[in-house]
């Protein structure tokens, strides 16, 4: 499958992987994308082929649709609950305007996409959050969509793949956004108690109320290299403890060392890894055959 076909040109700074300082914006901005880590100029064509990963391994942020496109089989994604969108429940100042801007900037009605799809022919339910929609923050609409997806997956005995990227609860919805953590957790628990499988793919950044609810409740937690996975924002922690933060603070690699992740998987490997895990959790025993067993004696002797 040609990945270039599924990636479109980034529409804004976030999608391109963070803000660049003004001096980096040159006339050839259309052609290359500079990496915020190694500073290399990536030709856009190469980036598309590499699923938006720089040669140095830095993973640029991708939209929910881009995420779903590279994880699932072509044209297999059927979106659900597209009609559920945010309202302004506590009449918070400027929230309506922010929602409109987010919809324009992300071309999505809400900060999460939900649906069913096939991953290498295995059926699953799947959600992906969108960093361009108010940094994937969770209000009542996001909470409702994710809850419905888990309820649907419970009813149909489907595994769930959840791709998270979020600043946490959406404070413009006040206490109602906090309650979405409870609501989604309840749905995840029911899905799990019914014996269903849930993988979370944590991408940069996954923080706050999303980390403190469904992001951490997967049976298996996979993170993307370099992703920030934490509860409090790093700046808040720094201000609270008035100490310099240790190197790699909240980075996936450090979180793995501390025992909070199962694995870190590069973007181009994610579909295969998820496929293997899905097959191992298939409810129809014998449906998926293991690959040829490695003959270890020969392998170690040669």
């Amino acid at each position: 499958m040609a990945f270039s076909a599924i990636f479109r040109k980034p529409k804004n700074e976030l999608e391109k992987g963070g803000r660049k300082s003004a001096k980096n914006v040159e006339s050839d901005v259309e052609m290359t994308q500079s990496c915020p880590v190694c500073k290399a100029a990536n030709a856009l064509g190469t980036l598309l082929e590499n699923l938006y990963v720089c040669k140095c391994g830095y993973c640029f942020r991708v939209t929910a649709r881009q995420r779903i496109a590279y994880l699932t089989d072509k044209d297999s994604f059927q979106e659900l609950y597209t009609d559920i969108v945010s309202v302004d429940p506590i009449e918070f100042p400027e929230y309506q305007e922010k929602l409109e801007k987010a919809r324009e900037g992300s071309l999505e009605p809400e900060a999460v996409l939900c649906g069913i799809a096939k991953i290498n022919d295995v059926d699953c339910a799947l959600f992906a959050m969108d960093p361009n929609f108010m940094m994937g923050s969770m209000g009542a609409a996001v909470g409702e969509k994710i809850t419905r997806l888990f309820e649907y997956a419970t009813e149909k005995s489907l595994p769930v793949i959840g791709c998270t990227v979020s600043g946490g609860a959406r404070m413009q919805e006040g206490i109602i956004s906090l309650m979405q953590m409870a609501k989604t957790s309840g749905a995840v628990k029911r899905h799990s108690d019914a014996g269903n499988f849930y993988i979370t793919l944590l991408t940069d950044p996954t923080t706050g109320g999303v980390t403190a609810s469904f992001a951490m409740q997967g049976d298996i937690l996979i993170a993307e290299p370099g992703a920030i996975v934490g509860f409090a924002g790093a700046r808040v922690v720094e201000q609270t403890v008035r100490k310099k933060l240790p190197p790699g603070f909240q980075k996936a690699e450090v979180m793995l060392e501390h025992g909070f992740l199962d694995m870190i998987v590069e973007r181009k490997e994610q579909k295969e890894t998820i496929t293997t895990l899905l097959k191992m959790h298939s409810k129809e025993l014998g449906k998926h055959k293991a690959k040829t067993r490695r003959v270890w004696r020969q392998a170690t002797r040669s």
Partner: protein
Amino acid sequence: MTTAYEQVVATRSQERLTGLDFINGLFTDFIELHGDRRFADDPAIVGGLAYLGDIPITVIATEKGRDTKSRIKRNFGTPNPEGYRKALRLMKQAEKFNRPIICIIDTSGAFCGIGAEERGQGQAVAENLYEMMTMRTPILSILVGEGGSGGALALAIADEVWILENAVYSVISPEGCANILWRDPDRAKEAAEHLKLTAKDVSKLGIVDKVVKEHEEEPDIMLDSLVTDISMWYEKISKLNNDELIEKRYERFRKIGDYM
């Protein structure tokens, strides 16, 4: 009339009853149980066994401390992951022995520290939400002061949630909100107003089941009537079987949230 922000500030007053005051004021024969059996004992969360009338219960409370020394010891009532894990351990014990669980909440939130992050603050909160949702024993949570975000919610997945009339419950502190939205913590007053965080507001939004009158001059009146109310609550809820109980708990949270 007090403003929302004045109410927030008042919840932080050293004059207010703390978690331990409620434990000792509401229940008898309190026996404190320590530690999460994994890392440490968190002094910001106090838990143990006690009697409500003649019913043994499990009680879990955040504790802020009162003077500077005790406030430092209690980390100003902001729990670390081990606090939430201790709470969960005690709740699972309560489930095993069919004891009701009563949580007393007064915290500005889960602690934002280096160690807290390294030991999985988010995971600890997430696990409590997840496990409490299907805990097969009645749970009552009472917000008695500051109800700060996920750190408060981690003890508030309950069959009923009550709030004292001068307490608050919020997704973020007004200072934090003002800082993020307007990069100006001085606009906290404005943020407090907009966040709809007072007892009255969260009651109107259907987040809590009961607003408890405080009788500030005479806290004993409040404590006495709370004992009666808690006993009545337990009498009513203990009639449900466990399947009905957790179904109702799920529905309680399931219906929260306006969308189009």
